[in-house]
């Protein structure tokens, strides 16, 4: 990502809690609610929906469910269906009736109603053609004040909605309002929300900061405005760090927050601070496994010109999480350059690993590396390593990579790729392999020499026909 952060960065932060995720959230909690009602958890975590209905009738003394409950739950499914089909108009129509669940005589359902209504209603208002920011604001303000349970959550989502509409200042104001809101007792879930709200505020400040920084970079140091802008930049950074740092200490996935925080720390030369944040984010066991955490750390260390062994240890973890990541080729290079033999072996493993994934099959660099490295390994008398890797793949790689079809289409699309693949095929499957034979048959003027060399190497090193 470029240093100049733009709004899209903020939107990627929505994976935590945000507008674009409303539909998922909608299905999540809402169906959760329903499950509470309609299914029974038995010891093994199995659901027996029919049992629940039976139990319900027992619980209410054999009386059938009130029609109020029946029609409102039917209404809910109609709304969900309409949302799924993007029929905002119909959804709004049903919503009109669904509001009465706020007055449900069943206190459990009455308490759950505001959240469900908020989620459905905000989704409708987000997409409905007749809706506008004003309508949304009114709705959000109303829903915020039904009970105190949802104030913070709604405020945050309200702010995200405003951000989506480019109303940064309004969003900031909403976040500040929410930040200072005090009502009822402090609970842990509320604390997280307050941290999130503050962090989002920090993110907005970061955005301003980053804009200022860009201005600064355009200015000449001797410009009379320079010092003023620089001062401004500094002030912002201080506020932001306070806002964000509390959140990222809590376990969670906070990618955009971490990124912008680190960027600012780095800018002011606090490398140790930045490294600490990143290391903590990547290695703290309380945090959920997150490949990005390792990528950030790696990129940071690379910028800091950290020793190779350190870089290798970071990527090793990434390799375990995402063996197909594009950084794996860099990892391979690092391993190849290492002095340790086990690193060399791992280097081969990594390459094979990358090419196991369908998304990487056309990656010419990976094939080039593999061709070279397999040859080098075989030349270095490590036939066993290759055999070891090949053992688990020989059943499926031939049809996955080296079929006649692929030979034809690869050659047509990218002759260089075809050559590299043919070389690997020859080494692994012997010169009789169809892919290899197909490429050999092609008469190509420029590649002619290369193919000849390849033929010789295959004859010499192929694992199918080990040297006698």
């Amino acid at each position, binding site marked *: 990502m470029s240093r100049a952060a733009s709004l899209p960065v903020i939107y990627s932060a929505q994976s935590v809690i945000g507008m674009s995720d409303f539909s998922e959230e909608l299905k999540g909690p809402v169906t959760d609610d329903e499950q509470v009602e309609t299914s029974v958890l038995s010891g093994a975590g199995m659901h027996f929906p029919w049992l629940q209905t039976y139990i319900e009738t027992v619980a209410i003394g054999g009386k059938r469910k009130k*029609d*109020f409950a029946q029609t409102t739950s039917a209404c809910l499914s109609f709304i969900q269906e309409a949302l799924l089909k993007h029929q905002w108009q119909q959804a709004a129509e049903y919503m*009109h009736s669904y509001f009465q669940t706020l*007055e449900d005589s069943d206190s459990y359902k009455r308490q759950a109603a505001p959240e469900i209504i908020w989620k459905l209603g905000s989704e409708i208002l987000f997409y409905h053609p007749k809706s506008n920011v004003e309508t949304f604001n009114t709705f959000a303000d109303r829903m915020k004040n039904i009970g105190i349970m949802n104030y913070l959550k709604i405020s945050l989502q309200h702010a995200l909605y405003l951000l989506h509409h480019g109303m940064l200042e309004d969003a900031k104001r909403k976040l500040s309002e929410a930040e200072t809101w005090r009502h009822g007792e402090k609970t842990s879930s509320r604390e997280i929300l307050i941290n999130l709200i503050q962090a989002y505020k920090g993110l907005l400040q970061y955005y301003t900061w980053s804009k200022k920084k860009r201005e600064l970079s355009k200015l000449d140091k001797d410009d009379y405005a320079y010092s003023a802008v620089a001062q401004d930049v500094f002030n912002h950074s201080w506020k932001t760090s306070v806002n964000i740092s509390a959140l990222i200490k809590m376990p969670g996935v906070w990618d955009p927050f971490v990124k912008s925080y680190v960027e600012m720390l780095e800018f002011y030369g606090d490398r140790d601070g930045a490294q600490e944040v990143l290391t903590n984010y990547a290695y703290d066991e309380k945090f959920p496994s997150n490949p990005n955490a390792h990528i950030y750390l790696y990129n940071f260390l690379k910028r800091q010109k950290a020793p190779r062994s350190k870089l290798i240890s970071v990527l090793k973890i990434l390799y375990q999480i995402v063996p197909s990541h594009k950084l794996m080729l860099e990892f391979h290079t690092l391993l190849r350059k290492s002095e340790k033999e086990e690193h060399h072996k791992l280097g081969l493993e990594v390459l094979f690993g990358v090419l196991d994934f369908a998304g990487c099959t056309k990656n010419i660099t990976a094939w080039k590396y593999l061709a070279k490295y397999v040859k080098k390994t075989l030349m270095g008398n490590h036939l066993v390593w290759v055999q070891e890797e090949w053992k688990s793949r020989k059943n499926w790689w031939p049809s996955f990579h080296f079929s006649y079809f692929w030979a034809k289409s690869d050659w047509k699309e990218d002759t260089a790729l075809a050559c590299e693949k043919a070389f690997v095929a020859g080494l692994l499957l012997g010169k009789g392999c169809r892919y290899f034979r197909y490429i050999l048959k092609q008469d190509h003027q420029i590649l002619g020499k290369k193919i000849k060399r390849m033929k010789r190497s295959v004859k010499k090193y192929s694992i199918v026909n080990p040297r006698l």
Partner: protein
Amino acid sequence: MRGFAAAQAHGILSPGLAFPAGGLLPPLPEAALATRVTGPGGGNCRGAAMDLEEAEEFKERCTQCEAVSWGLTDEGKYYCTSCHNVTERSKEVINSDIIPNAQIKALNRGLKRKNNSEKGWDWYVCEGFQHILYQQAEALKNLGVGPELKNDVLHNFWKRYLQKSKQAYCKNPVYTTGRKPTVLEDNLSHSDWASEPELPSDVNSPFLESGMESQSDVHTRKSLRISKALQSETSVCSGSLDGVEYSQRKEKGLVKMTVPQTLAFCYLSLLWQREAITLSDLLRFVEEDHIPYINAFQHFPEQMKLYGRDRGIFGTESWPNYDDIYKKTIEVATFLDLPRFPDITEDCYLHPNILCMKYLMEVNLPDEMHSLTCHVVKMTGMGEADFLTFDPIAKVAKTVKYDVQAVAVIVVVLKLLFLLDDNLEWSLSNLAEKHNEKNKKDKPWFNFRKWYQIMKKAFDEKKQNWEEARAKYLWKSEKPLYYSYVDKPVAYKKREMVVNLQKQFSTLVDSTPTAGKKSPSSFQFNWTEEDTERTCFHGHSLQGVLKEKGQSLLTKNSLYWLSTQKFCRCYCTHVTTYEESNYSLSYQFILNLFSFLLRIKASLLHEEVSLVEKELFKKKYSVTKKKSKSKKRRR
């Protein structure tokens, strides 16, 4: 008594069985039902404490029953509260400087003023129900039901109920504050019923018998009640005076009024009047909001406040259920000890022959089927007046589910004609189709398949609309019900919030007037010859499924299967069970179609079909246990 006289004029009531006995019940003016009829304003409605206090000075024993328990009539005369004997002595004789009527008036005004504040009127639960019944009667009148229903029949049933449940028109009404919730007028010349000149002096009148208790009992109970009443006034748990007491009242044999019960009263009156509204129609009108039911309380006068226990008594969150109201109807009729209802004869709407015609039209079946249904009705004896007429005082009080039964007859006829085994009906359809193609000018043969396709589509659409309308139903009244005064602002705030949100979202909805209230109709489907897209089968012929044999017509199909082989003989209420998957798809479809029309469960209709078959194949049931029987019928 007007109602009574009218009933007699119609020859409905035999004089001996005169119900709400004219002499006992004071005539009730129209205004009595129209406005808030009872309460502090009326002459009969005096605080017991006051009443008794005034009468306390009078200590003589009653000449009739020797009790010392005197009340004051509006003329200022003393009457015995236990035997209702009115003395010749009036209060003026003892205390000449009080003019009772004036004092009562003044006191009443006082009461009113006091209660006009936030607290509202003093009112009784039964007044609330009376108000709902009044609204329902008005609605029925607007639906075209004759005015006698409201003025005479329902009115008398209600009076009789008040009497039987000892709430009014009896010696010892359960209300102890003395302000009996009897029906009143503005006119003060009316006083306690005891002062009616035509009062029968025989205490053994059948309606008083039940009220007889030993003297001491009456006394202790009275004093207890007074103290209780005073208590309840300080600790308010309901808007009505007796809400708490009412919800705790549990007496053996007492049928307590509930909101669904009001429909039982309505249906009883409709039945008495032999009106052209079946129970399923009535309930459908309720569901379509043509008859006040859900939140009927919101039309109570402003001064009748509801909260606390009233919530449980008057709040409803369900539509009425056919079976439930049916049972309640019988229960109420038995409790009221009603005489045999007017005969259901062949010219009555509720007679199966007429209902069958109606339902055949409704579901788009050929008119020719009617003669077959009539035949089944005749063979089963279901058309007899004795079978059809409701007689609550018979040994086993039961009434006929007229609508369900008529529909069941149609199902049986369909089974006779088409067997409905997922096979024969289709091959008969093929024959009809071929015939119709060849003879385009003739009257077309009825094609079951074509009928199914058209009905299936229409039915699915109707059902979908119905489900959507239900999902959109707004249950909550403009007047929120709350538990106590503490909750009141919360409840009102919630209501306001909901209204605001609804307003906001209604701007997002296209203003197409889809929400327009349907006008009430006993028909849900309409089929006309002009409609080209939806074929009307009324005029189609059954020639394809019948064959002539000499003078008589026989069904081509000679097989039949019974919906129920064995009836349940245990003491549970059901006679059979309906496991959908055990039956043919055609049968399932037909049951679903009809049970949707009547808004009942398919199992209920299945049960009725089985009962009709039981009558129709009576002999076979007792003689043989063969699975299916062939049957030939004459026409």
